[in-house]
């Protein structure tokens, strides 16, 4: 699954940084029908976990009320240089992952 994450490449220690992620996904509600009139089964990204150097900093449980191609924005304190890791899974069990590196100075 394609995703775009936005994390500043550099930050000062202690700085609050914005983190954004947009994942390409239909977030199928389960209430729609295909052209043959067959119901399209529900398939949404139901959870997203974000860790910073291995420690959880943000977690989301999502439902069909979240728009297609889910976009999330939150913040975190830049504590140390390292990696932010984003992991998500949809109702079909398909997993996705994205990483972003950050250099913390000062």
């Amino acid at each position: 699954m394609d995703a775009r994450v936005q994390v500043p490449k550099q930050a000062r220690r202690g700085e609050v940084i914005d983190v954004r992620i947009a994942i390409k996904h239909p977030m199928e509600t389960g209430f729609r029908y295909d052209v043959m009139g067959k119901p399209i089964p529900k398939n949404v990204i139901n959870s997203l976990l974000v860790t910073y150097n291995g420690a959880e900093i943000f977690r989301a449980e999502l439902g069909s009320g979240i728009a297609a191609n889910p976009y999330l924005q939150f913040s975190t304190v830049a504590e140390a240089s390292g990696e932010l890791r984003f992991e998500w899974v949809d109702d079909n069990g398909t997993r996705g992952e994205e990483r972003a590196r950050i250099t913390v100075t000062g």
Partner: protein
Amino acid sequence: MKTRYPRRRVIATLAGLAAAPLLPARAASPAGPLAPLIEKITGGAPLQEGRVRLEIPRLADNGHSVPLKVAVKSAMTSSDHVRSITLLSERNPRPLMAIFHLGPRAGRSEIATRVRLNGTQRVLAIAQLSDGSYWSASAEVEVTESACLDAG
């Protein structure tokens, strides 16, 4: 006979119209269709109004994707922070839209996303703080083109 518009009344009316959008969003009344779900979320703890700011357009042309932002008044320290933010919709077939878990490492208690809204309705944001209290804000959103979540 010439129609007369008393100047004072006209001015008062205009002033009233200008002030209207500044009125606070309607109180998050625990009654209504969301009451059982709210009870489940808070575990029966009182849901207080305040500390939460919900930014969402009052008029959404398209219910498929409505941007919203939630900000909670909190120091975001290890002893005083926001644990979670829950988004509820009054008229979606599945009213629970999302739960976001955050902690003191967030630095700032603010999240943004885009939601689907099945028609004109009230949207509610509930924040759980580290002391176990629940706070909320709500906003009425008029949706001209619904997200068509309903079956059929």
